[in-house]
């Protein structure tokens, strides 16, 4: 499935060529998740369904993800059963695909993969796209209760990490990290009243993990980035964050599946929470 050797969980990635040969596999469901919501309508991988993070993955009232019943309904209507292999792809170098993948992992869906290179690579290779909406028959899905504690970090955990100097990864752009984007406090940026970063967080922009074509870098390059340059290691409890957790889910995927770190959590409250939190410590270089 993946042509890269050395990844801890190489089976979490599929390549475009492999997927093209397996589009008619009844045990596979391709899921498109994009920032640009109309891309799917403009053309998608044949058989792919769309899962939108706003409409499908988020609770409509409180800032949280859907519950078990909603997840069961989401999977069922898209023809996803407990044994279905779900392959996620999307725009923006798979930010939102990784985000959807991460939400599926809150429910412990066992067979989930990311299409290496996402929508862009599929299109760059001039592979087939269709506007036809697939008519997958509904499936039966029995979901577990969400197990957030395994891969999701909350505000108080992050505060504890700050106090104990636990490893935090800020995957935003350098200008967001420094707070440079926030010139005047009268103009709220990113929905936050303050700019900067969580004290102790290392700046490792998510984009450093991918090549120009959107595919993930080699395991050697990733180790150089995260371990040699930034002193992360697999024995640490790492928390990654960005603005709302979508870019940091991309980094979570890299650390967890490509480098095999067993304790990585995505702080989805991220800067929109921390930067608005009364009394939360903030660091600026």
């Amino acid at each position, binding site marked *: 499935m993946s042509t890269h050797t050395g990844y801890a969980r190489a089976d979490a990635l599929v390549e475009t060529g492999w997927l093209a040969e397996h589009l008619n596999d009844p045990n596979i469901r391709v899921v498109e998740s994009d*920032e640009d*919501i*109309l891309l799917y309508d*403009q053309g998608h991988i044949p058989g792919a369904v769309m899962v939108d993070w*706003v409409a499908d993955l988020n609770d409509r009232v409180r800032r949280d993800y859907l519950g078990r019943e909603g997840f069961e309904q989401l999977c069922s209507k898209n023809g996803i059963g407990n044994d279905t292999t779900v392959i996620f792809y999307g725009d923006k170098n798979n930010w939102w695909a990784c985000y959807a993948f991460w939400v599926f992992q809150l429910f412990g869906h066992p067979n989930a993969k990311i299409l290496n290179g996402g929508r862009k690579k599929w299109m760059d290779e001039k592979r087939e796209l269709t506007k036809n909406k697939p008519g997958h028959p509904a499936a039966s899905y029995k979901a577990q209760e969400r197990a957030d504690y395994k891969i999701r970090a909350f505000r108080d955990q992050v505060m504890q990490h700050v106090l104990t100097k636990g490893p935090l990864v800020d995957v935003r752009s350098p200008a967001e990290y420094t707070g440079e984007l926030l010139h005047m406090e009268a*103009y709220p940026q990113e*929905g936050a009243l303050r700019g900067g970063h969580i004290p102790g967080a290392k700046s490792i922009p998510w984009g450093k993990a991918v090549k120009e074509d959107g595919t993930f870098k080699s395991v050697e390059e990733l180790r150089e980035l995260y371990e040699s340059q930034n002193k992360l290691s697999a024995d640490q409890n790492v928390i990654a964050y960005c603005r*709302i957790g979508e870019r940091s889910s991309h980094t979570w995927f890299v650390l967890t599946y490509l480098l095999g770190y067993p304790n990585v959590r995505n702080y989805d409250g991220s800067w929109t929470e921390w930067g608005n939190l009364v009394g939360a410590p903030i660091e600026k270089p």
Partner: protein
Amino acid sequence: MQDRQEFIDFILDHYENPRHHGALENPDVVMRGGNPGCGDLVTLYLRLDEDERVVDASFEGDGCTISQAAASIVTEKVIGKTLAEVAALGHEVVIDDMGREVVSNRLRCATLALNTVQAAEKKYRAGQAAKSASEATVENF
């Protein structure tokens, strides 16, 4: 009544064939608007006559299909209107054209251009209007 696909086709037409695209020469107002949620950016240019009526408008931008199509739609909406009429426009003038159901999960993208042009009106009134893109700071909506 239009169906979903007709709304999508309308949006895609504005995205692929944007009206009034590009910088205006000698604008009276330039306003940049950003959507921090997803990186959409638009720059709106307005030229006014002595009665503060918009005689020309254009946009530049980068971002998702909905935000850029909306900017194209907004330029068509504001040409011929006075600044007071522009300020009075409600979001529905854009959302209804694009299809409320189609854009309901991306309302911030759909309203970015209108918010930006209405912020331009406020800046103009306050005597703070930028006259070039390089002068204009990005307002976040």
